[in-house]
C-alpha cells in the first residue's frame, strides 16, 4: 500500500487509543481519592507529568487539569485534539477505511464538538469519560468487523498496540510520581486505593483479582500490568501484538526478524518474556518503565524509516535484482513531518507536531 496511507492508518489508531487512555486516566483520578484527604496538587500533577508536561508553574487545580487534558486544542494529547487528529487521518484515507468506520469516527468528532458533549461533561464527568471509552470500543469493534484484515489493518493494529503499551507503562509510572514526595505512605490504605485505581483505569481490576491475591499488592499490580502474557493492556501483551502486526506486514516469520524494526521489537519482546518483576523493582521501576517507553518510541521511528520514508534511491540500488526495497535513510521525510503526526511523549515534540498540524489545517 501507499506509504503515506499506511502512515495515516497507524496514526488513526494511535490517536483513538490516546483519546481512550486519557479518558481512562481522568475518569479514575476523578473518583480515586474521594475517600482520602490528599492535597489537590498531589492528585493532579502526576497526570500532567505522564502527558509529558513537566513545567506548569504555580498551583495545580483539578478542574484546570481536566479541562486541559480534555478540551484544550493547544494540547496535542487532549481528548479533543486526539479525536480531531484521528478524524483528520481517517478523512485523508477515507477511500481505504470502511464506510461504517468513517461514519462512526466522523460522528465521534461531531459529538465531541457538540453542545451535547459539553453538557454531559458538566453534568457527569464519569459518564462523559465512560462515553469516550464506549465510543472508542465501538469504533474498534466496527473496524474489526468491517475493514479488510490486510496491510491497512495491520498498520492500524501496530499503531494501536504501540500506543497502548506506552500508555500502560505511563499510567504505572504515575504511581512513582505520586509517591515520590511521600515514601511513608507505602502500604497505607491510600497506597492500596491508588493501586486499585491504576488497575481500574486499565480495566484490569477483575482479571487481576482472578490471578493473584497474595504478596505485596503494589508489586503484584506492576507485575500484572507489565508482564502478564494474556491481559490485553499489559505492556508485554501489547508489544508482542505489535510484533505480530509488524511480521504480518512484512510476511517474515516472527522467529526470523528481517529488518531493523523487527530486530528492535524482537529484543524488547525477548526481554519482557524473560525478565521478572523482582528484577525490575530492584533496578527501579521508574527507570525500567522509562526505558520501555523509550524503546517503543524507537520502534515507532524505525517503522517510519522502514515503511513510510520510501526514497527514490531505493529503486536505483536494487533495480538490477528486480526487488526494490525501501530505504533506511536516517533523514526524516519533510513531507510526512507536515502531516498530522504527533510522535512520542516529550512535550516539545508534541507541541512542535501540533504547530505543524495546525499550520496545514
Amino acid at each position: 500500500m501507499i506509504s503515506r496511507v499506511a502512515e495515516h492508518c497507524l496514526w488513526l489508531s494511535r490517536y483513538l487509543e490516546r483519546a481512550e487512555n486519557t479518558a481512562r486516566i481522568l475518569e479514575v483520578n476523578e473518583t480515586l481519592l474521594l475517600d482520602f484527604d490528599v492535597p489537590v496538587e498531589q492528585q493532579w500533577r502526576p497526570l500532567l507529568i505522564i502527558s509529558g508536561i513537566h513545567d506548569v508553574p504555580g498551583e495545580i487545580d483539578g478542574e484546570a487539569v481536566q479541562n486541559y487534558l480534555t478540551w484544550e486544542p493547544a494540547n496535542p494529547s487532549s481528548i479533543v485534539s486526539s479525536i480531531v487528529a484521528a478524524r483528520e487521518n481517517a478523512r485523508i484515507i477515507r477511500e481505504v477505511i470502511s464506510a461504517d468506520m468513517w461514519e462512526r469516527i466522523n460522528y465521534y468528532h461531531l459529538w465531541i464538538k457538540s453542545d451535547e458533549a459539553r453538557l454531559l461533561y458538566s453534568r457527569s464527568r464519569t459518564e462523559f469519560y465512560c462515553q469516550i471509552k464506549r465510543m472508542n470500543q465501538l469504533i474498534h469493534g466496527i473496524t474489526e468487523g468491517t475493514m479488510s484484515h490486510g496491510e491497512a489493518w495491520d498498520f492500524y493494529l501496530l499503531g494501536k498496540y504501540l500506543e497502548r503499551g506506552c500508555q500502560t507503562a505511563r499510567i504505572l509510572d504515575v504511581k512513582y510520581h505520586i509517591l515520590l514526595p511521600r515514601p511513608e505512605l507505602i502500604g497505607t490504605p491510600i497506597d492500596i486505593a491508588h493501586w486499585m485505581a491504576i488497575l481500574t483505569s486499565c480495566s484490569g481490576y477483575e482479571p487481576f483479582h482472578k490471578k493473584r491475591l497474595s504478596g505485596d499488592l503494589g508489586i503484584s499490580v506492576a507485575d500484572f500490568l507489565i508482564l502478564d502474557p494474556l491481559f490485553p493492556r499489559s505492556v508485554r501483551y501489547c508489544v508482542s501484538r505489535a510484533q505480530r502486526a509488524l511480521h504480518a506486514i512484512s510476511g517474515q516469520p516472527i522467529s526470523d526478524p528481517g529488518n531493523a524494526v523487527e530486530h528492535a521489537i524482537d529484543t524488547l519482546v525477548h526481554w519482557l518474556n524473560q525478565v521478572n518483576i523482582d528484577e525490575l523493582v530492584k533496578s527501579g521501576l521508574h527507570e525500567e518503565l522509562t526505558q520501555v517507553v523509550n524503546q517503543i518510541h524507537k520502534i515507532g521511528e524505525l517503522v517510519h524509516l522502514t515503511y513510510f520514508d520510501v526514497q527514490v534511491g531505493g529503486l536505483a540500488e536494487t533495480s538490477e535484482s528486480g526487488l526494490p526495497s525501501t530505504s533506511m535513510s536516517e533523514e526524516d521525510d519533510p513531507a510526512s513531518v507536515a502531516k498530522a503526526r504527533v510522535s512520542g511523549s516529550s512535550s516539545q515534540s508534541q507541541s512542535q507536531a501540533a504547530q505543524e498540524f495546525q499550520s496545514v489545517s
Partner: protein
Amino acid sequence: MLAHYTPSRVSESPQAAVPGPIRSLFDGYQCHPTAWDELFAAPGRPHPHCESLVSRQGELTISEFQHLRGNADLVFINQGITFSVYADRRGVEKIFPFDLIPRPVAAAEWKTIESGLHQRIQALNLFLFDIYNDQRILKEGIVPADLALQSKAYRPEMVGFEPPGRQYLHVVGSDLVRDATGKFLVLEDNGRTPSGVSYVLENRVVMKKLFPKLFQRFRVRRVEDYPQRLREALGAVAPPASGDSPCVVLLSPGPYNSAYFEHSFLARHMGVELVLGPDLFVHEDRVFLKTTRGPKRVDVIYRRLDDDFLDPEVFRSDSLLGVPGLMRAYRAGNVTLANAVGTGVADDKAIYPFVEEMIRFYLAEEPILGNVPTYICARPTELAYVLEHLEELVVKPVAESGGYGLLMGPSSTVAQRSEFAAKIRENPRNYIAQPVVTLSTCPTWTDEGLAPRHVDLRPYVVSGTSSWVLPGGLTRTALVKGSLVVNSSQGGGSKDTWVMEDGR
C-alpha cells in the same frame, strides 16, 4: 460563470398571494413570469413528464417535507459530505445545500443533449489534436490563429505529441442552460478538471433513501455506473506496454483542497489509489508510487490537479503538489494523463464562439446543441450589429476572465455605452457580445416556501476509446431570489437530476 446574465423581475413571495394556511407542497407555487419552468408548463399544470412527480411529491405536507429536509442534511453531515471553507483556519466544513425537489429531464430532451454532447466533445477533441499538430483549422482561418496560440492554456510542450488513442478530453463537464423558450444551450465547456460528479451520485443516494416509493414508480435512469465507466475509460487509454491490468491512480492536490471529498469518493468507488504528488516520483522517465513494499509502476494518472501544478520542472517551479519529471514520462509515452495536458485551450472563452464552426469543419455536421448566441466583433457585420444593439447585449473582452471589463447593456448608461463603443471600434478582435439569457427555473425550497429559482445543468461525458454521457448530471440552483449565480462558492445549492427512461 453566470455573471453576465441579468436577473428578470421575479414575482412576490409565493405565499403572499395565497390566503390561509398552505397544506401541501406545491399549493400556491407561482412560476417565474418569464423564465422556463422545469416542472410547470403553466401555473398548476405540470409538463407531461413531471405530472406524476408533482402529484406524488405534492401529497407531502410542508411539515413532512421539512422533516425530510432535516434528514437529508443529517445524512450529508454524518457522512462528512462536506467542503472546507478556506477562510477558517480550524477547517470548518460545510454541506453543499441540497434541494429535495428533483429536476426532471424528459427522455426525448435527453436524447438531444446526449447526441449534442457526443458531437461537441468529438469536435473539441479533434480541435486539440489539430492545434497541437497540423493546425489545419488555423491555416484555413476557421479559428484565428492568434486566439488559439496566445491562449494562456495553450501548452507548447504538447506540440507534436500524440496522447494514447488521440484522446485529450477523458472527462468533460459542460455547463448547459435552458433559455425562456425551453431550448438547451451550452454556456461553457469544462475540459480541464471538472468537479461535482460525486454530488450527483450522493444526491441520488439521499433521494433514494428519502423517497423510495418515487423511484419505484418512475423509471429514472441510473447514475451509479459512473465510477465504473470512468475506471474502464482510464484503463482503455493506458500506454500499450502496461499490460492487462494497468495501474490507475487518482492524483489529488490533497486533503485541504475543497474537492478532496470528491477525489476520495471517486478513488473509493473506482477501486484505485488516491495519491498526492509526493507519493509519486519519476525515475528514467517512468512514474512510480512509493509503497510499503517499495516503488510500484504507475500507468494512468487521473489527475485532479491543474496543468500549472503538474510538474515543477516544466510548469510552475514552486509547485509542491506535482511530480518533478512527470512531463518527461508523459511525452515518453510511459504514463497517460487524464485529462491530457493543454486541454484548457478548448474551453477558453476566446475559443468558445468557434465551437459550432469546429463541428462543421471537422465533422461536416450541423451542431445539435447550440452556443449561447455570440457576436464576434472581429467580423464586420457582427460588429455593426453589436454597436447598434449595445443596450440589449452583454459585451465581454475575450482576454479577461472573472467578469472584468464587461458591459452589461441593459443596465448601462448612455455614457458607458458610448465609451465602450469606442473601445470596441479601437480593437474589435478583443470583444464578443451575447444577448441576455433568462435561465430556466425550478421549484426550490426557500424560507418563504417553494419558489422558482434559476438552475443550470452540468452533464458529464467520459471518454476512453469511446464516449459515454452520464444520464443525469449536476443541477445547480441559485438559492437567492432573482440570482443567476449557481456556483457553490457563491452559496448555490444542488438538486438531483432525473433523466426519465423512454416513454415517461
